[in-house]
């Protein structure tokens, strides 16, 4: 499959309680400094230390994120409206839970094979 055909968008759908909301807000704050993916990957890898202030600080600083601005963003909840809006959008699209994947608006199973098949079908292969 050639490059430039598809793009992938991650949407926050924090619906598993305060820890999930906290993680989404933290990742969104990292995204403010252009470090969405490093922190995204760490949360997805199940890094439990991110749920403690000291652990989060060490990981954030390890990823090169300026902790002062990050912590200010996290403390003030600057990205909370974005996270809430993303979840509301998902709910309006009928997202039942996570993960839920759409390919050009069509809901598909969240597996690599199902997504690839949907993409190929969309490009006429």
């Amino acid at each position, binding site marked *: 499959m050639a*490059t*430039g*055909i*598809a*793009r*992938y*968008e*991650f*949407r*926050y*759908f*924090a*619906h*598993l*309680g305060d*820890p*999930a909301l906290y*993680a*989404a807000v933290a*990742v969104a704050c990292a*995204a403010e400094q*252009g470090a*969405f*993916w*490093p922190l*995204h*990957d*760490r*949360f*997805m*890898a199940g*890094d*439990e*230390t991110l749920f*403690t202030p*000291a*652990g989060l600080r*060490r*990981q954030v600083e*390890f990823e090169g994120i300026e902790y002062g601005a990050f912590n200010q963003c996290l403390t003030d909840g600057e990205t909370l409206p974005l996270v809430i809006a*993303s979840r509301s959008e*998902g709910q309006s*699209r009928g*997202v039942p839970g*996570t*993960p*839920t*994947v*759409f*390919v*050009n608006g069509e809901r598909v199973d*969240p597996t690599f094979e199902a*997504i690839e098949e949907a*993409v190929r079908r*969309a*490009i006429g292969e």
Partner: protein
Amino acid sequence: MLTRVSRAGVVLAGVALSAVLLLAACSSESEQPQAASEQPTAAQVQDQQQQQEEQSATAYAAGESESAEQQAAAEQQSEQTEPPQSVEQAQESQVEEASADVQAEQQEESEQAEVEQSEAAEQASVQDEAEDVEEAMVGRIIESGHRAGLFANRNTVGDPDAPIVITEYSDFL
């Protein structure tokens, strides 16, 4: 001369008789007061009996009252003497209860201290484990090669003008 002798005899006899009578009179007078004193009259005896009865009655009454008073006093004394025993017993029981309470409190405190120590030890071990995990995670490089060479902007990866959009709604837990 015979007359003189008879006269003298008569005189002697008279004297003797008077002496005898006098002696008799004396003896009866001395004995009669003694008898009178030794043998009281019936009225005296009755008075004495009445007095004795009254005395005995008063004595009995007094004795009853005395015995009642003594009994009451004895009861009071027994009550007064018994309460100290009950107070002592109560004090002993209070002391025993207090000591039991103190022992129970000490036992609770020791148990609580043990629980706190165990909890502190558990927390310390958990904290150590967390620190170990943190140390391990800090240096861990998260593989993101699947995005290498792709345009990444915030939460988007790939060509912004690509015709196909894959959208994933996900959580971080």
